[in-house]
């Protein structure tokens, strides 16, 4: 056995610790200067770190930091649909709620929306929030978060550990950040159009029209159909996951709907003007859901949101009720026809069946804020849902659905064949359904 003196031990430990500290200091320094996520912007040099491609795949981290920089008083919460479609610069926002920041991001869950709401309010008290929900949010599925959600990036009351330690130093000393810094240094000649606006909105006109993007390669019509195909897979996978997990869940786990309740309760307690919307997906999304036998889930989701807002209103009779606007359904906006086959013409209202354009977002916010600033939203677009209107509204949608299918038999048939798996590679408008596999 090797014999070691005390002085040797102390020297050994000091050298080892100093080496580790020096290595970390070097990495922190490099990451601070290169700043791959655009957090600090201390040094911005052409050819070194001006292009920051790492931002695009870590939107949750970037937005958590941008909230600290922008200090908004109004925010948008939601998924990529709200991220793309709802303008923080819309004229209808309360002037006291400016600046407004679009805090929506891809695949946002209600649990994540709640935590980002608390974060934004902790940074600076909020005045106004627009909550953009998809119908799948208002369910009893367990509340979840995505892989890049990190609660330690977010501020909240009573969070004892300073952000400098739990967020800044932790991220700066991370090997992932070092990798991102190296990738940033190597990507300076690859100039990508910037689709991430300063107010947090994703600019669809830039994002979809980047060279090499599927929207450009397939054309608007081809891209729309491709998203429909993917949507069938996503919904099927979600249905399989739900059935595999069974209906039993641990008594202590919270659901996605529970976090909507938390958001409502938080805004009430903090006197934040909350406006809730169900975002306007194209009817192809509704038809896919119906073809998968999940139509009832959409109606139950809307009933659930109405129920919790009704309960909230009953608990706060002296305050205005929180409004719920439903922009799904079979309106003249959501039933927009696809471009002719072979055409590269764009749709007016939609990028694909999931994502609406800013013009539709403006119609939405016009309704939500009661604004009519030269734009005229189609009268059949959007309905206020309350306990007294929900059932008639749902019946109306069902009637419109039947009318849509009668008027658009090809569309309905295309969706059915997509779901049933017997679909051609690209749609032949002269063919309703084709047997065989792609």
């Amino acid at each position, binding site marked *: *056995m*090797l014999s*070691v003196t005390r002085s*040797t*031990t102390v*020297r*050994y*430990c000091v*050298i*080892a*610790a*100093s*080496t*580790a*500290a*020096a*290595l*970390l200091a070097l*990495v922190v320094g490099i990451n601070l200067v290169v700043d791959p*996520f655009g957090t600090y912007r201390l040094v911005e040099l052409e050819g070194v770190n001006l292009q920051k491609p790492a931002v695009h*795949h*870590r*939107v*949750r*981290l970037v937005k958590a930091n941008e909230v600290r920089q922008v200090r908004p008083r109004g925010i948008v919460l939601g*998924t*990529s*649909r709200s991220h793309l479609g709802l303008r923080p610069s819309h004229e209808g926002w309360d002037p006291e709620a400016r600046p407004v920041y679009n805090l929506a991001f*891809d*695949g*946002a869950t209600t649990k994540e929306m709640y935590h980002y709401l608390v974060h934004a309010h902790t940074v600076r008290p909020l005045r106004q929030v627009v909550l953009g929900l*998809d119908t799948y949010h208002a369910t009893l599925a367990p509340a979840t978060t*995505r*892989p*890049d959600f*990190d609660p330690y990036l977010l501020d909240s009351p009573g969070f004892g550990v300073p952000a400098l330690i739990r967020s800044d130093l*932790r*991220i700066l*000393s*991370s*090997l*992932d*950040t*070092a990798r*991102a810094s190296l990738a940033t240094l190597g990507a300076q000649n690859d100039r990508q159009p910037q689709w991430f606006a300063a107010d947090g909105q994703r600019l669809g006109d830039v994002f979809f029209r980047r060279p090499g993007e599927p929207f450009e390669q397939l054309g608007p019509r081809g891209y729309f159909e491709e*998203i429909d195909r*993917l*949507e069938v897979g*996503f919904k099927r996978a979600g249905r399989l996951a739900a059935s595999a997990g069974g209906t039993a869940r641990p008594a202590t786990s919270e659901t996605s709907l529970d976090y909507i309740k938390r958001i409502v309760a938080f805004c009430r307690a903090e006197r934040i003007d909350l406006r809730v919307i169900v975002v306007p997906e194209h009817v192809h999304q509704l038809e896919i859901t119906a073809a998968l036998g999940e139509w009832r889930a959409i109606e139950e989701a809307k009933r659930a949101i109405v129920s919790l807002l009704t309960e909230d209103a009953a608990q706060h009779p002296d305050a205005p009720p929180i409004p719920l606007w439903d922009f799904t359904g079979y309106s003249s906006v959501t039933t927009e026809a696809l471009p002719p086959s072979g055409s590269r013409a764009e749709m007016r209202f939609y990028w694909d069946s*999931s994502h609406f354009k800013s013009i539709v977002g403006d119609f939405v916010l016009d309704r939500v804020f009661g604004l009519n600033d030269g734009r005229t939203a189609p009268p059949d677009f959007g309905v206020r849902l309350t306990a007294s209107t929900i059932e008639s509204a749902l019946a109306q949608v069902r009637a419109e659905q039947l009318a849509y299918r009668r008027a658009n038999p090809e569309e309905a048939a295309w969706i059915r064949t997509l779901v049933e798996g017997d679909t051609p590679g690209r749609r032949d408008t002269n063919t309703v359904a084709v047997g065989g596999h792609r």
Partner: protein
Amino acid sequence: MTAREEATGDRGRYLSHAITFVAVVVAWVFFRATDLGSAIRMLGAMFGSNGVQLPPSLGSLWPGTAVAAGPIDSGVALGVSAVLLALAWFGPNTQELTGYVGPDGANASPTTPRPRAIQWQPSVAWAVAVGCLFGAALMLMSKVSEFIYFQF
């Protein structure tokens, strides 16, 4: 000990290593699985009951063997696993690195002592190496995950 006896002892030791390794790998499945049925299904899959597919990057090595479809290519992972397995089996363990033998030599390594070059010393070189490993370990503790999924 004769050369023959030594060779037989070595073979026996390697065989016992392999048996122990397989036993531990099988046992781990039962610890990790949610229930007995899942464990048995997993073991069946591990022993080929669901067929065998090569990752796309290794498909050319055994022509005629099915190649896995899907976006994930596990070829690199298999390669890394093979290297790590070799390191675990044939590399020095901490007792051999540090020369620790325990009370009355109870924990002494039964194999021939490793070359002095790889034995730990309280030297500057070892201190720097360990410091670098410690720093790297701290850097690996923080994940900054990506999310690459635009759809929702």
